[in-house]
């Protein structure tokens, strides 16, 4: 059993939720993965993105809707994700805590 981490989000969860907030209506697997990879410069696997999104879904912070395949050959099936009101709350909470903790801490820039 993984212990509850209270209301704090794990680092990667936070990245995902920030990506959702930034991408708005266009947040699906490819765009989320590329967004995080571009911003952090770290390689991100699609499996990790989906696993984390599912975990956030369990916590009620994220919902999704699916798009039907486009009516062309090999048309894509996409699963679009967005933050729930709880999710937005958790994100606000986490970033607030983070910025409070960072206040006055000597940071190398």
């Amino acid at each position, binding site marked *: 059993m993984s212990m509850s981490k209270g209301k704090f989000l794990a680092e990667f969860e936070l990245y995902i939720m920030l990506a959702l907030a930034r991408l708005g209506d266009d947040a699906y697997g490819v765009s989320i993965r590329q967004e995080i990879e571009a911003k952090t410069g770290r390689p991100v696997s699609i*499996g990790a993105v989906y696993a984390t999104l599912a975990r956030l879904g369990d916590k009620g912070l994220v919902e999704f809707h699916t798009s039907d395949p486009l009516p062309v050959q090999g048309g*894509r099936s996409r699963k679009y994700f967005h933050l729930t009101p709880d999710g937005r709350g958790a994100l606000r909470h986490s970033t607030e805590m983070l910025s409070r903790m960072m206040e006055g801490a000597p940071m190398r820039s």
Partner: protein
Amino acid sequence: MTPPRIPKGLVWAVADPAERRYLLSDLQEEYDALSATRGRAAAYRWYWSQAVRSIVPSLTRRLRRRPRVTGRAWRGGDIPGSVIQDARYALRGFRRTPGFTAVALVTLMLGIGASTAIFTVVNAVLLRPLPFNDPEQLVTVSERKLQGDTPAPHVSPPNFADWREQNEPFSHMSVVSPTSFVLTGGERVERVSGMSVSPEFFPLIGVQVAHGRPFRSEEGDSDEERVVILSHGFWLRWFGGDLSALERTIALDDHEHRVVGVLPPGFKFQDGADLWTPFVIPPENRRDAMRGARYLDVLARIKPGVTFERAQQQMDALARRLEDRPNNAGWGIALLPLHEEMVEEYRRALLLIFGAVGFVMLIVCANVANLVLARSTRRLKERALRAALGASVFRLFRQLLTENVLLAVVGGGLGMVVAHWTIAPLVRLAPAAIPRLDEVRLDGAVFGFAMVVSLLTGLLFSLVPTLLASRSEPGSFLRVAGASTGRRRQRLRAALIVSEVALSMILLIGAGLMTRSFVRLRAVDPGFAFESIMTASLALPSSRYESPERQSAFYARLLDDLGSLAGVESVGATTNLPMSGSRMTFGYRIDSRSGEAAEEQLFAEYHATSTAYFRTMGIGFLSGRTFNAVENAGRTKAVIINQTLAQRRFPGSDPIGERLTVVSQGGPTSRQIVGVIADVKHAGPRSTAREEVYVPLGDDPWRFTTVVMDVRDGESNLRDAIQARLSAIDPALPLSSAQPMARLIAGWMAPLRFQMLLVGLFAVVALALAGVGIYGVIAYIVGTRTNEIGVRMALGADGDRVFRLFLGQGMMLAGLGAMLGLVGAFALTRFVRSLLFDVAPYDPLTFGGITATVLLVASVASYLPARRATRVDAVSALKTE
């Protein structure tokens, strides 16, 4: 764009079933975009890395998730819940012991990776069937001497004709004769590879022409109307894939050939050929006098329903019926499945390598079983508790099995990645002569193999601890590593180590013997000087060089011209260059003994050489001399024989002046022996000398020859110079290949080098694994006996004694393993005898050297934990009691 199948399957397998579709669709989208922007290869690599890096998060997620209220994928439960529970439990366990998990995974990854890579090669070369219809019905047919060794497995034209008319077991028979043509009519003169086959060849193989028609049977009887069938590749290259080619002609060897058909794309037989022509046996070659001239390669298809054995029996009977024909006495007919023929040389080597893989996998199993044992000892308490709470032995076994299979499958997955990156370098290392190497690739069969190996490995190393555990009553678990169980475990672990050492010892000895063979083989004197020899092959088109006189004149002028080139010391020419794979075998008779034992048909390898050939190649004369001008012109008939023929047929007497009647293209000719040369390693450095006869090239010219030149300073620019001289004599004549003799010799060494490298690689991996195993066991023993060491030290034992105690234990295991390994090697190296050269399978140097190496590695592996034991602090050790 289709993404690579294996990583796609990997993602499909690990992803949550409810999300698979979206995940794959996302991957596909990025893959397509990447293919378009950065190219196929980059996209391919990206897909692989995405798939591999998705394994852990996806599996972790699936195994950890809490039962969900919503979501349809799990509701039915596609896997029984308790297995998921077991797996989840196992994952947590692995996370708690990262050291164990990492070592076990790396061991499995290396073992499975190496085996899979090797399997891929074996699969392509040996196991995948040939790309023909019912390939198991295809056989090569050749004449074979009933007693003694057969000089060369070929068929004479009259016998082929008789077989084709009289045989029962075959539906088709065909001559297969690789050839080459000089193609004119394009921008420049070109040499094109060809294959000359009987008209029945294509129905025999079971291949239909893609366009046009196959050969007609009358096209094999005479070459009045010349026809040609094109390979698909040649049709595209020469005619741009235009169907009007079927009404056109092309000029081959200055004869117009009408194009009648085009083969399907992808069809490849032997080394492949661009042009296919009907093989014509002229009537004069069907005379009885030609029965001794065995030079045809024959392929046949056994009729449906006839077994290979039955076919052989029927052909045996036919051989007996034909035995009264001239030159046929004592000859039988041998069938060999085509598949075997194509890969026979490599079969033994590949099986040897497969054996090495098996050994490494056994060592991997032993190592992982050791790790699992050590870990399960620490978990005895937990298992006891579960047993006491009512878990059955089966349930406990299943838990263990789940853990180990999970471990093995993840290790196997990583192994696949290792294999994927290993195959390309492996193929690059392999000698190009291994057939069908270009068909090597990872595919479903390979994937299946890796999975089966992984599962078996998991099962195997689960059984050992379970058998141990289930033998004791649950109650005994609660006594916490009771002394008896502990000792039994240690004995078992010791036994595993001993067998590991023994296995790696056998592998190392095998590798050592092969290395010694290789060194010996390199030192072999081929019987000629090759360092400074440059070779160039050429073939004269039959149309312009029909008469022997024209051919002789051409050669005389060419040799003269090349001899005047700067840097060329000496020039010669021969029909069959040593170590080039080219050879002819003809019958001969000793004139003075024609009365006695007339029935005995003698055979010798036949060469037509220029006068200066022997001097150029540095081949020594034991007695007599080379041909003189009169003999080269054919005005008196002369022959030179080799040492082997002289010793075998003229023991204790001087053969100079004796006469031999030698069969050649012009029929039998009586010739006087004028010289005896030292033996030459004609068929490679491992070959034993055969009987050989040499006749003057000017007397018996052939359309193909190889020119040899003794060159002062290497091959620099020589090729162009040779081509220039050649063009000066005949502008339409291309040079087919020019290469240093040394390169030909290196080609002979390549297969052995490849085998040696692979077995050596495996042996080193095996030794490393065995070393790690010894280290692990001794370290573990030191760990469990910390208390005892403390007591000993407290009672006055010094560090030295403790050190010697543990080092001694490690060395005892290694010594025992080495002994068993020696016994095993004695028993097994007999089977590699045929791969060895000039080294006894019981070579004492190899056996001794390897034993010393193994003991050295074992002592280093025991030294480290033994040192640790001496640093045990007596007081703190006793305190933990």
